[in-house]
């Protein structure tokens, strides 16, 4: 049903395509972070950096070296993976608040490096004119085509993530989140599991960054700051810890919300905060938890209401 809605959306509502494409890109990052935060219970406030390195890898490779976009797409994932491995190895020993601070610091350092390495990254203004994504002679040059590109990639990654969480690795993630001592007591290598899921979630963010660069055709430091890292964490929390679809719904919702509230200028942030608090009050374990049950309840409530009204009149 959701899949059908996704495929048909462009036909029903063409005006939404650009935003939905952007939402899809954020959803990819949120999906990856959901594995790390929602399943393995580890916090990262630096995921924007992996998103950024994906975008810059694509931007630099395609504009400077003429690498085809498919190659740059793969290279972005590799770059994010390598960076996550190097960063993750020392800092994943930290827990809780300390891990949050370390990843936060890492994200800020990444931003500073990007701003200062002008020769490579174009400094504060960034890189322009990143070519559209193209594969086998087909160029994704309109919002319509890009929408299908982004959501196609997202669906592929959802399948990957779904397989992961129903396998032994998914159980290992939950086990590490619930009790590290108990996880180690059955032979789970806690450090390696954490590093592995960190690297995978970074690769997701790298792929999303690559798509971002080719859809927006730019890469500039503003897009990869702490604001984005926090937004992604909010998507996972609002979507529901330990769910895969929840963060995707939350990504769509928050992308829309940011856009709609953008019209209110300086009031947008307070309004955003109010909506966020309301969501946490009414969906304390995330909108994605028992999502189907909730939808069915809503629909049946609507049905009951109609019936009641018919009886009353």
């Amino acid at each position, binding site marked *: 049903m959701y899949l059908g809605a996704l495929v048909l959306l462009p036909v029903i509502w063409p005006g939404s395509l650009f935003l939905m494409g952007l939402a899809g890109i954020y959803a990819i990052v949120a999906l990856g972070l959901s594995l790390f935060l929602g399943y393995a219970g580890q916090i990262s406030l630096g995921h924007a950096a992996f998103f950024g390195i994906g975008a810059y890898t694509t931007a630099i490779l395609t504009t400077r070296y003429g690498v085809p976009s498919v190659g740059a797409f793969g290279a972005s994932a590799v770059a994010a993976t390598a960076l996550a491995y190097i960063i993750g190895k020392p800092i994943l020993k930290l827990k809780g608040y300390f891990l949050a601070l370390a990843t936060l610091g890492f994200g800020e350092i990444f931003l500073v490096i990007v701003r200062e390495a002008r020769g490579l990254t174009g400094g504060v203004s960034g890189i322009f004119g990143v070519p559209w994504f193209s594969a086998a002679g087909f160029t994704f040059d309109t919002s319509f085509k890009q929408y299908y590109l982004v959501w196609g990639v997202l669906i592929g990654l959802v399948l990957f993530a779904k397989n992961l969480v129903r396998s032994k*690795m998914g159980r290992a993630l*939950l086990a590490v989140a619930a009790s590290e001592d108990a996880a180690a007591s059955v032979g789970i290598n806690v450090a390696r599991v954490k590093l592995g899921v960190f690297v995978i979630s970074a690769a997701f963010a790298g792929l999303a960054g690559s798509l971002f660069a080719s859809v927006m055709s730019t890469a500039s430091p503003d897009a990869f700051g702490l604001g984005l890292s926090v937004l992604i964490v909010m998507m996972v929390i609002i979507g529901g810890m330990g769910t895969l679809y929840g963060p995707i719904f939350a990504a769509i919702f928050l992308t829309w919300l940011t856009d709609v509230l953008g019209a209110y200028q300086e009031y947008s942030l307070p309004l955003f905060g109010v909506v966020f608090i309301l969501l946490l009050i009414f969906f304390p374990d995330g909108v994605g938890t028992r999502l189907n049950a909730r939808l069915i309840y809503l629909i049946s409530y609507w049905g009951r209401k109609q019936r009641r009204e018919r009886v009353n009149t």
Partner: protein
Amino acid sequence: MPLLAIDTISKNYDGVLALNRVSLTVRARTIKGLIGPNGAGKTTLFHLISGLESPSSGTISFRGMAITGKAPHEIAALGVGRTFQTIQTWGTMTVVENILAGMHTRVPGNFLSCGFWLPWIHKGEKGALKEAKGILEFLGLLGRWKWPALQLSFGQQKMLELGRALAMRPKLLLLDEPAAGLTPAEVKKLSEKVCQLRGQGMAVLVVEHHLGMVMDVADDIAVLHNGELIADDTPEAVKKDPRVIEAYLTVAGG
């Protein structure tokens, strides 16, 4: 050669001597009880064997191989399973997932092969599920296999923790106060299960306050008091040992 050999091991916590030159062995296919008043160093000894902490001096060897200094997951992979004094089941996971996670080292796959769901992953998962249900049947939890572990009763969670350790197919099982908080009926059932495990070729080292249970099931009993080993003999001999009686009388007040 004993399955587990602990050789003159000491553990010092910032000047507090929790264990003082303790040596004991566990032979294959036997149940060894480890008793002693509170604070005698029993749980410390467990942490040292399973690698959660490392000893200040002395060595521990398992099947002739030194395991001191190895990481907990490495020791577990060698065949040492354990339960915890405070329950450490994974509450958010279902009962069967708890058992399946216990099979972690025996099920094939890594992040990539699991993500792409390669053919052998599917096969491994299917086999594991069947085996997990077998373990749940053995423990009498099969009827609740899809429940979140959190919703089980205390006694059932203790059983589940035992099952998770069994899922590793350990050669040595460390049970840290398995009977604490259980009803007499549950204790009896637990004793039966532990004896059955010995029949299947497992060695068990059990820390317990419930003396009746230890006396029933154990082949040998070691007694710790203030970090020192004061007896290591058959249950009958330990019961009559004047030092043991004195230790329990002075600390527990009868």
